[in-house]
């Protein structure tokens, strides 16, 4: 099979974002779809640099979207949304911005994605290439580190 040139992520993203959102809305409903949208494209982005064949990117990204949707439905069934632990309460974002610069790379990304962009832990996990739990841990240890520094 001939290898098809992998386009810049920008073109891929612009070409398929509407289809991905439609698919997610269909399976998850409007409200939940937005978070799954972030998770889908963050997962796609992580894998994108290793793609060797751009044969059918539409099918590829829709497969990721369906997997994300299935995961989200499972999570919803397993545990209804619980209040976040106290260490995880929202710090003032203004104070956070510059301070976060000094955090270890992973914690910094987790804190900024959580509080700067309001991403779910599942989506943060997708961005960091780790599990939802690991994303939660990275975020809270980042916040704890910030707290210690602010004191």
């Amino acid at each position, binding site marked *: 099979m001939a290898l098809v040139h992998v386009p810049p992520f920008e073109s891929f*993203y612009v070409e398929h974002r509407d289809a991905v959102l439609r698919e997610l809305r269909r399976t998850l409903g409007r409200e939940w779809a937005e978070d799954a949208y972030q998770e889908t*494209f963050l997962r796609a982005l992580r894998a994108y640099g290793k793609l060797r064949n751009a044969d059918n990117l539409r099918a590829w990204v829709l497969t990721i979207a369906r997997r994300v949707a299935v995961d989200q439905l499972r999570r919803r069934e397993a545990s209804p949304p619980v209040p976040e632990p106290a260490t995880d309460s929202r710090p003032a974002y203004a104070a956070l911005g510059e301070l976060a610069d000094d955090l270890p790379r992973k914690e910094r990304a987790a804190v900024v994605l959580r509080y700067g962009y309001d991403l779910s832990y599942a989506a943060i996990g997708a*961005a960091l290439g780790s599990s939802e739990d690991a994303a939660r841990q990275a975020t809270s240890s980042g916040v704890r580190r910030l707290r210690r520094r602010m004191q």
Partner: protein
Amino acid sequence: MTVSPILDNRFREAAAAAGLLDVTYDLTDSPVGTLLLATTDRGLCRISFDPQPDREAEWLAQTFGVRVLRATKPVEPVRRQLNEYFEGKRTRFELQVDLHRSAPFSREILERLALVPHGETTTYGALARAAGRPQAARAVGTVMNRNPVPIVLPCHRVVGANGSLVGYGGGLERKELLLKLEGALQNTLL
């Protein structure tokens, strides 16, 4: 479009904040027209005049990696310093420049170019001599013409031995405008 601008931007900025991109780019307005600005982890890697974003994204992907995405935040320092420069409030850029994909000779010439101060000019021959290649004035001209980050690496400050402006990748009008802005034109024959 089904995807709202808010949702779209949130993904773009989150992707950049997560450190998942090879290149981030954005467009900005300036007195020399719309500019495309692009950065990698290593620094500013591209400024282009009259950009055609699709073609630029293709070039960036081939040069630095396919994870190319338009987003605002990573290019913000570049945008800010360029604005200050055009307002006459900045004479030196404090930006890392990513030249690691340039050939060694180009890189050496571009690094020397970076030292030519605001308000002054040099010549193709002088840059060639400074690089220990006195015969290479023409090759220096080619490097200037292909400068990946014009304005910040000031190829507009390089003129002919007789003071004529010679040429500019972004067009001679822009070279003249930049030199006038810097107050460097009175010593130069047009």
